[in-house]
C-alpha cells in the first residue's frame, strides 16, 4: 500500500509541478498507475436521476395510501401500490416492473444517506455527489468521471474517456451545474465530453455546419501541408507545438474513426430504438450502451436537471411520478439486458442514483430538519398536493448492476413507518465513491498533490468501499 500511494503521488506531483512551472504536460494517461486492488469492472455508467428521486415512490415502497380528499398527509408514505420484483421479498413501486424484472442482475440499496450540507439545495448536493466535496471549495474539485478518465485513461483511445449525456447548460442554476461538470485541477483534457441531446449525438463527431467529409479531410490536409511548408522548424520543436499538432490528430482520429459510429443512433434497428425511446433519457441510455460497447470509460446519463422539472417534484408529485417512471423503466431494464447479452455487464458497473430523496412531510432528516421549501396542507384537498414534495436526506435509492456487484440482493434496511429513514447499513457518498473506485481497482486514497495539498478521489482519502456489495 505504502509503495503504491507514495510512488504514485510522487510521479503525479512531479508532473503537476512541471506543468505549473513550464506548461508541460501532466502525467500522461498511458502511465496507468499500478494498484493492488483486482478490478471487477473497467467501465462505469451512472444513471443520474437529477432533482431528488423519492425512494418511497420508486424502489422502496412503503404502506400505500390512495388519494382521497381530506386525508392527513402524515399518513401517506407511498402514493403507489407496491409490485413484486423478480427477487423474493423485494418490491418496487408500481410502474417500475421492467426494472423489477432485471433485479436478479443487480443490487438494490435504499440507504443512500446524503451529506449534511445544511439548507438542502440541489446545486450543493449534486456538486457533493459528483465530486465528493461540498462547495465552495478552495481548489477546483474534479467530477468523478474526470478522476476515472485521468487515472485509467480511455479504453478506446479514439473516444473521449468521459462522456456526459443529456444535460443542457441553458437551464436555471446552469452555473451551479457547470461548477461540477469539470475536470477541475486535473486539467480540461479529462473533463466531460458533453452531449446535450443524445438524438443528435452524431453531430458531435461530424464535420461542422453540414460540411461533407471530403472537404473536412481536405481542410485538415491543407492545414498539415501549410504547417510542413512553414518555417516553424526554426523555432525548435517544442512540446507546445507538438501537443497542438498531436491533439488535432486525435480529434480527427475520433471524427474519422469507426468508433464515431457509436454516436449515431440511426444505426440502431427501429425496434431497438423505439424500445429505448421513452424520451431524451431513454435515448441517452441507448447512446450509453453504444458508447460503452465502443470503449468509453465513464458515461453519465442524466434525466437532466432543471429547477422544478422532472425529479424536482415540488408539486403534483404523484402524477408526475407516473411519467418519470415511464421515462426510466423500459430503457434502464433494456440497457441492463443489452449489456448482459453483449457480455459487457460483467465488466461494466451501472449505478443509478439521485442527490437525495423526498418525503411528503419531512424536510431534511429526523433530528436535523431544515426550513420547509414546500407548504404541506393539514389535509389533502387537491391532487397536486399528493406526492413527495420535500427534500429528504436520511435514505435514498441506489441501483447497482454489473462490475462484480452481487445479483438479486437487497442491501441495507429502511424504516417502514415515517420517518422512512435508514435503519441498517447506510451508504454515504464517500462509501459509494470508494465502492465504485474499488470496482475499477482504484484505491480510495489515490490522489494528487495540488498547491501542496493532497487531494484524493474520496474526501481526505478516507472513503471505505462497501466490499459486501461485491459477489
Amino acid at each position, binding site marked *: 500500500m505504502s509503495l503504491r500511494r507514495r510512488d504514485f503521488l510522487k510521479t503525479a506531483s512531479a508532473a503537476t509541478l*512541471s506543468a505549473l512551472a*513550464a506548461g508541460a504536460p501532466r502525467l500522461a494517461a498511458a502511465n496507468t498507475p499500478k494498484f493492488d486492488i483486482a478490478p471487477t469492472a473497467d467501465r462505469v455508467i451512472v444513471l443520474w436521476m437529477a432533482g431528488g428521486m423519492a425512494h418511497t415512490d420508486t424502489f422502496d415502497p412503503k404502506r400505500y395510501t390512495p388519494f382521497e380528499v381530506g386525508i392527513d398527509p402524515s399518513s401517506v408514505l407511498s402514493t403507489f401500490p407496491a409490485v413484486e420484483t423478480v427477487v423474493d421479498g423485494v418490491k418496487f413501486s408500481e410502474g417500475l416492473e421492467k426494472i423489477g424484472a432485471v433485479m436478479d442482475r443487480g443490487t438494490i440499496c435504499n440507504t443512500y444517506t446524503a451529506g449534511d450540507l445544511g439548507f438542502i439545495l440541489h446545486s450543493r448536493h449534486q456538486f457533493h455527489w459528483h465530486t465528493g466535496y461540498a462547495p465552495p471549495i478552495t481548489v477546483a474539485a474534479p467530477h468523478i468521471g474526470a478522476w476515472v478518465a485521468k487515472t485509467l485513461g480511455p479504453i478506446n483511445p479514439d473516444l473521449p474517456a468521459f462522456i456526459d449525456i443529456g444535460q443542457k447548460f441553458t437551464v436555471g442554476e446552469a452555473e451551479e451545474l457547470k461548477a461540477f461538470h469539470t475536470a477541475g485541477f486535473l486539467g480540461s483534457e479529462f473533463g466531460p465530453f458533453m452531449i446535450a441531446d443524445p438524438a443528435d449525438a452524431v453531430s458531435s463527431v461530424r464535420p461542422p455546419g453540414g460540411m461533407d467529409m471530403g472537404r473536412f479531410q481536405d481542410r485538415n490536409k*491543407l492545414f498539415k501541408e501549410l504547417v510542413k511548408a512553414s518555417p516553424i522548424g526554426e523555432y*525548435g520543436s517544442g512540446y507546445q507545438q507538438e501537443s497542438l499538432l498531436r491533439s488535432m490528430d486525435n*480529434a480527427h482520429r475520433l471524427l474519422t474513426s469507426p468508433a464515431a459510429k457509436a454516436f449515431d443512433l440511426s444505426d440502431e434497428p427501429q425496434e431497438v430504438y423505439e424500445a429505448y425511446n421513452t424520451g431524451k433519457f431513454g435515448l441517452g441510455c441507448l447512446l450509453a450502451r453504444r458508447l460503452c460497447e465502443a470503449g468509453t470509460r465513464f458515461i453519465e446519463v442524466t434525466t437532466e436537471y432543471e429547477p422544478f422539472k422532472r425529479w424536482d417534484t415540488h408539486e403534483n408529485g404523484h402524477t408526475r411520478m407516473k411519467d418519470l417512471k415511464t421515462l426510466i423503466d423500459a430503457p434502464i431494464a433494456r440497457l441492463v439486458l443489452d449489456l448482459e447479452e453483449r457480455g459487457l455487464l460483467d465488466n461494466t458497473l451501472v449505478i443509478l442514483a439521485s442527490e437525495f430523496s423526498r418525503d411528503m412531510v419531512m424536510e431534511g432528516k429526523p433530528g436535523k430538519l431544515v426550513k420547509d421549501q414546500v407548504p404541506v396542507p393539514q389535509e389533502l384537498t387537491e391532487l397536486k398536493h399528493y406526492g413527495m414534495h420535500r427534500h429528504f436526506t436520511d435514505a435514498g435509492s441506489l441501483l447497482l448492476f454489473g462490475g462484480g456487484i452481487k445479483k438479486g440482493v437487497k442491501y441495507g434496511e429502511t424504516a417502514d413507518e415515517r420517518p422512512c429513514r435508514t435503519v441498517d447499513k447506510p451508504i454515504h457518498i464517500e462509501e459509494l465513491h470508494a465502492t465504485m473506485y474499488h470496482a475499477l481497482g482504484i484505491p480510495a486514497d489515490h490522489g494528487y498533490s495540488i498547491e501542496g495539498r493532497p487531494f484524493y478521489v474520496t474526501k481526505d482519502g478516507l472513503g471505505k468501499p462497501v466490499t459486501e456489495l461485491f459477489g
Partner: protein
Amino acid sequence: MKYIVLSITFIAFCVSLAPAAEDGEAVDYLKDVHPILAEHCYACHAGDKRKGGLHLGTHEGLLKGSESGPVVVPGNSAESLLMEVITTSDEDLLMPPKGRRLNEAEVATLRAWIDAGMPWDESMPKESTYQAPLQLQAATPQSDAPHLVDAFLADYLKAQGLEAGELVSDNLFARRAYLDITGLVPTPEELATFARDKTPGKRARLIQTLLADDRGYAEHWMSFWNDLLRNDFQGTGYIDGGRKQITDWLYDSLYKNRPYDEFVRSLIAPPTEASEGFIKGIVWRGDNAIVQQSAMQAARNVGQVFLGLNLKCASCHDSFVDDWSLDQTFALANCFSDEPMELVRCETPLGKKAGYGFLWPELGDVDGSLPKAERTAKIAELVTTKGNGPFARTIVNRVWALLLGRGIVEPLDSIDQEPWHPELLDALALDFVESGYDLRKLIETIATSQAYQWRAIPASEIADEEYVFRGPTVRHLSAEQFYDALASMTGVWQANPKFIMPEDKTPEELARQEALAKAAAGGKNEEAKAGDNTVEGRRTPVRAWRVPADSLSKALGRTAREQVTTRRETVGTTLQALEFSNGTTLFQQIQLSAEALDNGWDGTAEGLIIRLYEHGLQRAPRVEELQLAYRIVGPDVRREGLEDLLWALTMHPEFQLIY
C-alpha cells in the same frame, strides 16, 4: 518568521487518527506516522518551533535530535528516547506534556516505524537554507548595462557561464509586444510602420506607445485581473446575490492606471460598493462551513492574490507545508468578519475565540475592538505598506511570468520560495514601489529589457529542477487573444457584450441593451441573438473578454473563475482540438469572417492570402505556402476555400503560439 521550503508535500490533510499498520503491512510515513507526529508533537517541534532544540518536521531534524542528544535510533525502538517519553508513567518526562497522550495503536505505529529503520520519503519536507526576507533588499549589479533587468541578468549569465540570448526579429518582437500589452496582433500596416523605423530605441518606444493606449491596455489586462480577482459576468453565487461583479470598477482602474497599492486597498477595504465584490467572495446558498464563509475566503484570497502565500491549508489546521497557523489565519479572517469568530479546526470548534491580527505582527497590529470597516482598512494598509516585501514581489513576479512565461519564483503563489534571481526580483519590486506602484511602468520596465527580446525557449526544454533562465518561454495565445486575433484579421467581433464600454454608454445604446435583455429574459434569447449572427451585427469591435465563456473559449483555457486563478492551463488537448475541428462556435466565426473578408476585398486572391499571413502570423507566406493556399482559395476567392484557409491559419502553431 522562519520559512521552511518543501520540495513536494503529500501530507495527510485533516486525517482522522490512523490506526497502527495492520499485521504484515509496512508502516507508511505519510499515512501512518506523520498524522501522529503532527497531532502530538508539531505544536512545539515543527515549523518555527524548536523546543529543546528538537525539530520533528524533517528527517534531518529527527535524526539530529535535541539539545540533549539523539531521540531516535533507527532500527531500534527499544533504544529510542522518543518511545520512552511517550510511554513513560513519569509525568515530568511524559510527552506531550499537555493534551491527550498517545494511545496504544499510535505507540505501536511509531515503534514499528522506528524498528523498520524509519523509512522516510524523499518527497517530505526538507529544510531549506533560503529565507525570504520580509523587507525588499536593495542590491547593486556588477554590470553597468543601462537597463535594470539586463544589468542584473548580466551578472547572472556570468555566474552561470551563459551567453545572452539572440534577439528576435522586429516582426516577432512586435507580435509579442502587441499581444502582451493590448492583446491584439499587429496589423500589416502597424508592422510596416515599425519596420520602416530605423532609429535606435524603436522597440522601447513601441512598448511605450502601446502602454499609452488606455483602452487597448485595459481591454487586454481585464482577463488577467478577472482570473486573479475571480470576477466574471456569470458563475455560482450570483443566483441569489451571494456574489458581486467588480467589472466596471476594474476596467476603470486599469484604464486610468490606478496605482497598485491604492487599487489593492480598494479591493480589501472597499470605499464604495463598486469594488466590494472581491472581498465578499462567493457565498453559495445554504449553510456554509466556516472555511467556506466570506471572512475566511477574504483571508485566503488576500493571502494568495496579493501576498503570494497559501493560507488554504491553514484555514483548516496549522499548515504542514509552511509555517502558517490556524490562529494566524483566523486572526486575519476575523478582521473581515461581522461577528467575532471562534476557532474551528477541521470542522471541530475549539471553544476558543479567534484573535485579530495581520500575518506579520512586526508590520503592525489590528485592534479587534475597532469596527469592521476600520479593521479592514488597517489590513489594507498593512498589506500595502512599504515594509511588506511579499506584496510588491508577488505582483512583480506575476507580471514577469506573464511576459516571459515563467516566474522568477515558482510556483507563483509561493513567493517565499527561492527565486532563481533574488536580487533581480527585489530590484524590480523596489523599482515598482518607487514608481508609485505603477503597473504600466512595471510592464514597461520588463518589456523594454533585452531579455524580453531574446529568442523564446520551448517549454519542454526547460528543466523544472535547477531552473536556469535562458530567455522567455514559448507561450500559447490565451482564449481571448485567439478570438481577438481572428476578429482583428477579419473585422468580425463578438456579439452580445456583457460590458458596455464607458464611451458607448449613450442613451440609445443603453436602451438597445435593455431591450435585448428584456427579450432574453422573456425567453426570446434566440431572437435577441439572431441579429448578431450577421457580419453587420458584429462590426463593433467587441473583444472576447466582454462576453461570457463558451465551450471554445473554455477549451482554450478560459477559466470558470469559481476559484482564484493565477495561471491558466494552456496545454493543447483533444477536447480543444475537437472544438477546433467540429465545434460550431469556431465554425460560425470562420463563416462570418470569410463572408466579411470576401465582401470587403477588392484585390487579388494572392493579395488576400498575403494579407492574412501578415496579419495572423506577422510574416509573408513562403512561395510554397502561397501556392498551397492559392490552390484552395482559387483565383476568384472561393468562399469555402477561404473558410478553410482561415481555419488552417488559425490552427497554425505560428498563430496559436507566441514565439
